[in-house]
């Protein structure tokens, strides 16, 4: 028997359920793999079918059918624009987002740990946080011009707040017993930070990073519609303005959705590591 299985068996044997909480037997689907892959594919197929039929019924010659979008994607790929725009968007997100992680995580941890810093800075953060990054677009153009720097700044701005706030909350939510145990073993401030605070906050910090990455990806598209002339956001606005190429507009939207999904899956994989997995099981 594996260690985990043995632990689980003994856990099952000795653990009394908390009062009032009856264990609810989970319904197991007969073929979980088939259902997990098959059902989403079925829904996607139905969606494409409904889309196709509606466009045909409406008689629109501007709005594309799924097959037109596919042709649009192929056309973009042939011209070399698809890869170029994807790389441009990903580059901006990478730079802006990396900046937000580098600033947001340490700042959040400090604000979470030192009460005085928290009291001093938290109100300011809470005022800046709800301002949509879109509202910053005119300011970004004023400061950085029509250049890569403007969208990078907007992405930084959109992700730095969720990251800071989640790191802050992560420190404030650390179980006091971990800090007490660490103090008991005589850890100094630096060691306490490295050996307890950092690992204890990692799961929640990672969740903040995942949410922020989603926001960053939303914002890059919006920023590229106004501030630059490359990227997936630019593709969409340019395809519309230059000849109402709605097949390319939707092609851009599809690519944004797929890349967004890929980014999320990537960060979710980080949540599977043993160092953080404890923080997600409930």
């Amino acid at each position, binding site marked *: 028997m594996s*260690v*985990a299985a*043995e*632990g*689980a068996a*003994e*856990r*099952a*044997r*000795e*653990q*009394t359920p908390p009062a009032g909480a009856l264990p609810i037997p989970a319904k197991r689907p007969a073929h979980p793999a088939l259902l997990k892959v098959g059902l989403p594919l079925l829904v996607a197929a139905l969606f494409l079918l409904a889309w196709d039929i509606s466009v045909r019924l409406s008689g629109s010659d501007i709005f594309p059918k799924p097959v037109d979008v596919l042709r649009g994607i192929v056309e973009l790929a042939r011209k070399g624009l698809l890869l170029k725009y994807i790389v441009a968007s990903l580059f901006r997100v990478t730079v802006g987002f990396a900046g937000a992680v580098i600033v947001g995580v340490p700042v959040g941890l400090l604000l979470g740990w030192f009460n005085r810093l928290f009291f001093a800075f938290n109100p300011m953060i809470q005022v800046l946080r709800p301002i949509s990054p879109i509202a910053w677009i005119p300011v970004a153009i004023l400061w950085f011009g029509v250049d890569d720097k403007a969208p990078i700044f907007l992405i930084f701005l959109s992700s730095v707040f969720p990251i800071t706030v989640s790191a802050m909350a992560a420190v404030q939510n650390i*179980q006091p*017993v*971990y800090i*007490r*145990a660490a*103090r*008991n*073993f*005589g850890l100094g401030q630096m060691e306490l930070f490295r*050996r*307890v605070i950092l*690992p*204890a906050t*990692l799961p929640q910090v990672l969740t903040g990073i995942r949410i922020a990455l989603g926001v960053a990806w939303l914002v890059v598209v919006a920023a590229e519609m106004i501030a630059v002339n490359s990227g997936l956001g630019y593709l969409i606005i340019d395809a519309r303005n230059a000849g109402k190429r709605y097949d390319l507009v939707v092609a851009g939207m599809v690519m944004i959705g797929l890349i967004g999904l890929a980014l999320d899956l990537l960060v979710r994989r980080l949540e599977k590591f*043993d*160092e*953080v*997995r*404890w*923080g997600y*099981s409930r």
Partner: protein
Amino acid sequence: MSHAVELRDVWMSFPGKAEGEPVHVLERIDLSVMKGEFVCIVGPSGCGKSTLLNIVGGFLPHTRGQVLVEGQPVHGPDARRIFVFQENGIFPWLTVTDNILFGLDRDNPRREELLNHYVEMVGLKGFEKAYPRELSGGMRQRVEIARALAASPDIIYMDEPFGALDFLTRLKMRTDLIRIWQEERKTILFVTHDIEEAVQLADRIIVMSRRPASVQEVVTVDLPRPRDLDSREYLATRDRIFGIMGLSAKVGTSGH
């Protein structure tokens, strides 16, 4: 034998809601624990016995009196006295091995040896690489006890360490703790609300009153170990403590 822990006229109060009316938690506590002794503190739930242990452990300040450990006043937690918490005191991001070795220096040459020794002692051989979430509640408490022992403290403070475990696991943990204590001869100060647990474990039992808590009586349990839970002496001691706490032994025999 000299004193490991000594409290002289210790008081503890919180500032109350109304001005000038502090809430007294502990009143004129006098107690002492000898080196190598196993002492239990029992009292009704919420009486302040856990507060008392936290004061001795250096986690809470007291208001008045003297708290001496190894003859020195307590100013904060100290690696020579390790606290074992009620539950989830071990670090979930570390394996059993890394948890047990937490209190040791990286360059301590005896790491391997100590690890093997204590893993064996608490019965976790084969689980060295497991993470806490893969272990049962009882196994996690064993890891915490091993972590405390590996730091080779002089004293171990235990705050209802088995309180969250089920009845059978609790019985087994008590037997194991006694065996470990007999091998290691550490001083143990153990807080519990479970009278039977105290009588099974302790050399002496300090019975606390309701809040504001003071020492109501100190009962010496002079029974050989392993203790026979059906013996007349055991039952008499148990019933005596039930009596001191104002409970009928008939009501309290279920062990809760």
